[in-house]
């Protein structure tokens, strides 16, 4: 009854082609999820806008900027960086759910390249985050945020944001594969907020106690936030520390370090799943 079977699965020439095709098939799964459950993804995309409004309007009045600069213009780049970081949660939950439900095992027992599954996850999450970022930027513009530099610099800033997201993605895959179950996922979720606060996303680190301020400065999130504030020419109280002066460099170096650590760990975790 099954004569219509795929004959050539792995002619070497097409192996890379199949990798891309399989990755796209797996990524498309997420797009289908969005269509089936539009509520969840829309909340996900609009949640950062709510945070921006909350901090910008409710707390913003109490935060005095030097030289009368606009707090909102300071805040929005921080929000962009934070949104990339928040993607951690989505990636981790998706990866962990698939592992727990046995879908990952089903993929692993199929004759496809392991990379296709991970690449599919990357593509889906990058698309989602790019859309989320776009929505937040549009909302920011509507609410009065502007970039003042050249368009190329603004695009470079977007590039840095997506690079950060890409790095976070591998942390998410690693944590999602390592988490024993929904409980461990939840405990990581709780930590996402303090990590965001312990950065210069919302306020300048000079206003923090010395030690915490230093930690916050070295937070990869801060480097990206500072770098894109510079590129967008938005206010961003320059400090004196090396890490701040070299923010644009570090906004590239940090993600690369994270990728160098977590990409191999994720691949190993995927192979060793279930030990």
């Amino acid at each position, binding site marked *: 009854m099954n004569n*219509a079977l795929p004959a050539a699965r792995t002619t070497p020439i097409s192996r890379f082609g199949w990798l891309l095709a399989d990755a796209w098939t797996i990524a*498309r799964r997420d797009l289908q999820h969005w269509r*089936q459950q539009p509520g969840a993804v829309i909340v996900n995309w609009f949640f950062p806008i709510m945070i921006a409004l909350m901090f910008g309007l409710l707390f913003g009045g109490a935060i005095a900027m030097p030289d009368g600069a606009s707090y909102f213009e300071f805040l929005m780049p921080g929000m962009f960086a934070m949104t990339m970081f928040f993607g951690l949660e989505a990636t981790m939950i998706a990866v962990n759910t698939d592992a727990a439900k046995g879908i990952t095992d089903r993929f692993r027992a199929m004759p496809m390249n392991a990379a296709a599954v991970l690449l599919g996850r990357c593509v889906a999450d990058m698309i989602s985050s790019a859309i989320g970022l776009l929505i937040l930027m549009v909302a920011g513009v509507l609410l009065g945020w502007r970039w003042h530099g050249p368009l190329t610099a603004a695009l470079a800033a977007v590039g840095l944001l997506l690079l950060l997201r890409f790095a976070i993605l591998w942390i998410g895959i690693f944590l999602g594969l390592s988490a024993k179950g929904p409980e461990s996922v939840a405990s990581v979720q709780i930590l996402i907020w303090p990590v965001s606060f312990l950065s210069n996303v919302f306020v300048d680190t000079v206003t923090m106690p010395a030690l915490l301020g230093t930690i916050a400065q070295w937070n990869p999130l801060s480097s990206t936030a500072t770098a894109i504030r510079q590129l967008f020419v938005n206010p961003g109280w320059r400090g004196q520390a090396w890490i701040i002066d070299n923010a644009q460099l570090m906004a590239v170096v940090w993600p690369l370090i994270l990728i160098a650590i977590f990409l191999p760990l994720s691949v190993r975790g995927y192979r060793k799943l279930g030990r």
Partner: protein
Amino acid sequence: MRKHYAGGTKDAGLNGFDLTVRRGSVCGLLGPNGAGKTTAIRVLATLLELDSGQAQVAGFDVTTQARQVRENIGLVGQYAAIDEIMSGRQNLIMFGRLNHLSSREADKRADALLEQFDLAEAARLPVAKYSGGMRRRLDLAVSLIVSPPVLFVDEPTTGLDPVGRREVWAAIRSRVADGTTVLLTTQYLEEADQLADRISMLKAGRVIAEGTPDELKGALGGDWLDIVLPLDTDKSVVMRIVESVASGPIQADDEANRISVPVIERTRALVTVARALADAQIEPQDLSLRRPTLDEVFIHLTSTNEPEAQLEPTL
């Protein structure tokens, strides 16, 4: 094969598991909860690494030739591994595409399978809304999108109603008819009896008995004489009668009012008991001889501590 889980008990995992399945045959792997059935399947499906020993599937080594093994196997895991948010049809199409069917072929195959597994009506419903049996059937359908030469099925009918069970059996049988080699685990002895050519009984990560269903039933030695008694019978009298013919421990099922006696010389035992009962003025409701059920073999083997010693001479 040996596999020890970090943090597992001594008996957990596989402890010298050994199995040969002839090409084109169906092997049933029977064992109580925690016997290591799923562990064995996961090792053979390249999902779990062995500590020591080796295994070949379709002629390929699971450790060194994992990719070739994956090209030759289908896996239906113990728990339905399907995407719950997508519809049944979307699942089938996705896995069809991952099996490198063209988009048209994948559509066609999805519809055929939905029809075959009686899921056509629910085809466009998200799987989260499926009943347990529907999920199981979809899960099996997914693994039948293409027909690999070797199929692993881990407890395919747990939680299915009799109709669903029959459908799953039919699907597995049709696959067997196509020449697929099937390794099936199950808790239901009837299922193994129905589907399997040979059965391996597993306990604490080791095969403790192996043979055709008939051989295993014969391994208990002889037949059983079942006596169903009227409610008010004095059982002690009956017990005294049957003790003289019993070749092993007698089992009394008080609820069914039935006494089961293992016997060796079947007709003589039957006649002796019938005559003695008549002399004692006891008229049984039923008196019959039968081969032991696999359940009895199973319970016998898995409840004893040194099962190997007991079975090997008879096999």
